[in-house]
């Protein structure tokens, strides 16, 4: 198992390198000069020269790249051109906010999507199945911003049950923190719930017609046990794999929802950095996101192996 994980990590290294080259060169190809942006209205040639020197923008591009990668490996992703904070520190501040949001959204998505998927598979062709599919389809097609605004209007403005925006750090007041994030997590989670529901349904439909489910019934087990133990355990593999990948997407996809609910998370950091041409921050964000995706992929692979006795004994 350990060697399997190590092997997978080794395979991930070239991927990360490739992404870093891509991130770095994209940066260089983009229009707009960050130094000019920083130098302000006067564009004093001396200031410009100083800044170019400071950020090593005069070096040949491969040298700039090597320098950047060298620093990145040591955890130094450079400084924000705008706020003069280390990029890693900025990310470290904002990422936990988004991870909390994504985790809560994932709980919503799994809590709704998986039971709904099981139910609609078991009740295939009935009204329950039909309703679940229609709801899932609407869940997929309702834009997050619309759902978010509607929820704010109803729950916050009309009923005044939950705050419409803001953020309370989990460490300060866990209960309040969860409460504030309930709505955005729900908004973010619903679209995923629909995806998870449809995948759970199709995985369960496959498994429910299998011979071993028939065997479980032939033993006289209760239908509940047949479905939740014998069938679901085998449908779990694609569900867990998908969930791990969706979680990675959630973090990247939280941008819009964070804007609607004015949550100071990763999404806000991304938007600010892009609009301000804060190159170092953008680079850092893309790199961290890419590594995050790779880690979630790795976890998905590990889960896949752990869930399959046959693979487990081979690795």
């Amino acid at each position, binding site marked *: 198992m350990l060697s399997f994980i190590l092997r997978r990590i080794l395979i991930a290294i070239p991927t990360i390198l490739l992404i870093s080259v891509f991130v770095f060169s994209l940066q260089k190809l983009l229009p707009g000069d960050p130094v000019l942006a920083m130098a302000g209205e006067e564009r004093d040639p001396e200031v410009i020269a100083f800044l170019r020197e400071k950020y090593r923008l005069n070096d040949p591009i491969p040298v700039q790249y090597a320098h950047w990668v060298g620093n990145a490996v040591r955890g130094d992703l450079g400084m924000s051109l705008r706020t003069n904070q280390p990029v890693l520190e900025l990310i470290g501040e904002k990422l936990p906010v988004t991870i909390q949001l994504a985790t809560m959204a994932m709980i919503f998505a799994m809590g709704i999507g998986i039971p709904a998927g099981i139910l609609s598979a078991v009740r295939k062709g009935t009204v329950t199945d039909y309703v679940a599919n229609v709801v899932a389809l609407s869940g997929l097609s309702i834009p997050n911003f619309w759902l978010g605004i509607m929820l704010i209007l109803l729950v916050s403005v009309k009923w005044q049950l939950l705050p419409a925006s803001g953020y309370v750090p989990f460490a300060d007041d866990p209960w309040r923190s969860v409460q504030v994030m309930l709505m955005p997590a729900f908004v973010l989670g619903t679209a995923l719930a629909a995806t998870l529901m449809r995948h759970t349904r199709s995985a369960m439909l496959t498994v429910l017609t299998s*011979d071993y489910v*028939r065997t479980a019934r*032939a*033993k*006289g087990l209760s239908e509940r046990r047949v479905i939740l133990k014998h069938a679901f355990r*085998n449908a779990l593999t694609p569900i867990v794999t998908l969930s791990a990948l969706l979680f990675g997407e959630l973090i990247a996809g939280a941008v819009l929802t964070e804007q609607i609910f004015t949550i100071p998370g990763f999404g806000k950091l991304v938007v600010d950095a892009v609009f301000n041409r804060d190159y170092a921050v953008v680079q850092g964000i893309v790199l961290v996101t890419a590594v995050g995706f790779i880690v979630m992929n790795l976890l998905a692979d590990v889960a896949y192996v752990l869930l399959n*006795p046959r693979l487990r004994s081979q690795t």
Partner: protein
Amino acid sequence: MVETLVEPDAAAPVLDVRDLSLRFRGFDRDLLSGLRYSVRSGETLCIVGESGCGKSVASLALMGLLPPTAVEIGAADVRFCGEPLDLGDQARLRSLRGASMAMIFQEPMTSLNPAFRIGDQIAEAVMAHSGATPAEARERAVAMLRKVGIPAPEERLNEYPHQLSGGMRQRVMIAMALVNDPALLIADEPTTALDVTIQAQILDLIRDLQAETGMATIMITHDLGVVAEIATDVAVMYAGTIVEAGPVERIFNDPQHPYTIGLMSSVPRLSGPRQRLTTVPGTVPTPQTMPDGCRFSTRCPFARPVCATDPPEREFGAGHRALCHFAPLETMLERSA
């Protein structure tokens, strides 16, 4: 839980199917029509017939393993251990399944759950029908694995299905089916998917276990050699009907239905080489192409216009019966001469 186990009544057959007709929803002809067969304690009924004639569907219906949403049961007069068995009563069927009636299947490679240890899968069957503790159930599983000839059962218990060969998996299936000492075992082509050498071992095993426990057995098979070896009685199925049934010697030595005669024509008597059921030219009609009257009429060399009407059931004594306008055989030969 114990009250769900039915005490076998020595006089009555363990399973007595008096009338069974069913169709899959969406079809306008019955897939199974008027099935009638019974099997007593310690006896073996072999059901033979070409692939697709409804042998498995009939067994699954009796076990309550067909999805109620997919089938319409037309007639079901069934008795189990002397008591009426309502094939629509899911709760009762579930309490009987794996306890007093058990089934093993054709596909040992896929019939065990790949995610769980075989010991747990057997123990689960014990706990489903008794108040046994996990430890007791495990002990039963070990004993049962030993009984079905699995070496080092204490260790094998912890293995997953993929670690076992096909023959071993079928042994595990047998252990699981028999762990609660059922009154009836339905074995649906249990050896078809196995190597020839393993086939004989599995059949011997079932026969030995039957001799030991006295359970009634329904063996579904393609293999007339197997029938000759183990059957007490035979039911010949064709396109969802039982065209001929009776004691094994009668069926082999004095077949009455043209279909049975076709099957037997290549099998000299109760001995001789094993034959598969492929000797009658033509194919089984589907529910769409099913003829009116005698279902075999499209392939029968003796077919006459009258065969488009429902054939009568003729009795020849000792429980030997056939579903044909022209049985007994002598009548048929005279007419075709």
